[in-house]
């Protein structure tokens, strides 16, 4: 994986080959778990980085919206960063000595493949909708957290179509089942692009979460650390106050499952390129995001509950 080109976008096959290489090179640190299958029967892989048994988990997912290519690319960079820094970077080593990191690089593989082969602008899953010519569900409106409320569409032709029922999408249900069966995930970060935001629950209601002061302060510190590298400006707050009302979102569900440190990132940029962020932005984006992730992971490690 030293020769892998982290500064380019890659196909699904290339990403899968990268994961296999990473596991082969680091057999004592990295394992590849299959947590389920997509609608089109592609495997859903999670890389588990673990330095010992029976640790709490810290989840990171990238690429649930397939066209947000910088997120999958950043996920690849994070995976390599983890194996480089473990044993070399004191702060990170302390984190991985206390918690496992669970990284799902391509959360919506059918959509990702579709963006490479057919429609670069595809966002949703690829499951057909009975009675409609429109395909796919927005997997960030499909979670059982205010499902069906405002901020999601009941129209299969819309980009924010919520699906027929909560967890109807296997890409979502597989994570739900994994999180429940794991039972000890303490932090959950779902990564999107673009807009440059760091947000915590809720999206489906204006009611503040009980841990809002702590989550707000941690978000402030995370974006300050992120900005320390290139000065990239992020906004932060709850989803509903920072961006918009969105029901059925990922981190609302994880928070309601008891995962206190639930956040969602919106990576670069703020509107020049949108989802077509040039490849030369991948590494700077990943580097600065890693600093934000480090702040959240360190706080989680120091405040296990």
């Amino acid at each position, binding site marked *: 994986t030293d020769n892998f080109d982290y500064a*380019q976008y890659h196909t699904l096959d290339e990403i899968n080959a990268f994961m296999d290489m990473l596991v082969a090179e680091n057999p004592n640190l990295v394992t590849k778990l299959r947590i389920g299958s997509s609608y089109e029967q592609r495997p859903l892989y999670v890389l588990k980085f673990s330095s010992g048994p029976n640790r709490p988990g810290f989840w990171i997912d990238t690429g649930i919206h397939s066209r947000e290519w910088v997120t999958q690319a950043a996920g690849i960079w994070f995976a390599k960063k983890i194996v480089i820094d473990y044993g070399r970077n004191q702060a990170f080593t302390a984190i991985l000595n206390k918690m496992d990191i669970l990284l799902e690089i391509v959360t919506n593989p059918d959509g990702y493949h579709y963006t490479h082969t057919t429609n670069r602008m595809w966002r949703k899953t690829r499951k057909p909708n009975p009675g409609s010519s429109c395909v796919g569900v927005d997997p960030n409106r499909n979670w059982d957290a205010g499902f069906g409320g405002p901020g999601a569409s009941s129209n299969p032709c819309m980009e924010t179509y919520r699906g027929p029922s909560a967890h109807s999408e296997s890409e979502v249900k597989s994570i739900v089942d994994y999180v429940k069966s794991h039972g000890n995930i303490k932090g959950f970060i779902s990564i999107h692009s673009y807009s440059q935001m760091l947000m915590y629950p809720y999206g489906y209601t204006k009611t503040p979460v009980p841990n809002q002061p702590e989550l707000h302060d941690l978000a402030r510190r995370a974006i300050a650390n992120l900005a320390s590298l290139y000065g990239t400006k992020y906004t932060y707050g709850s989803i509903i106050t920072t961006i918009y009302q969105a029901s059925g979102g990922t981190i609302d569900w994880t928070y309601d499952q008891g995962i206190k440190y639930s956040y969602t990132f919106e990576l670069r940029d703020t*509107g020049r390129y*949108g989802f*077509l962020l040039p490849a030369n932005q991948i590494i700077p984006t990943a580097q600065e995001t890693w600093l934000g992730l480090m702040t959240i992971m360190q706080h989680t490690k120091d405040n296990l509950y």
Partner: protein
Amino acid sequence: LKAFEGDKVLRILAKNEDQISLLQDLTEMDQLQLDIWKEPTHPTLPVDIHVPFESLQSVKAFLEANEIEHYIMINDLQALIDEERHEMQSTRFIEPRN
């Protein structure tokens, strides 16, 4: 492969809640085949919409008739996609670093 020749991405800046409401109506018009990159929710947040070439006139007319400020964020979506694809293909032919 779906082509996006002539498609543009508009950045729309609503002045008030009334304009947000008008934009919400616009995004519900399925016949325009709009791809909403950033939804209309609050006047402080920009709205980004990928508009297919066939719908450009209708959308521009709607925005101008309602005096909603907007500008072109991406002038030719297909050109950017072609550039991205070219970049990916060209790097595949570069010898791996030793």
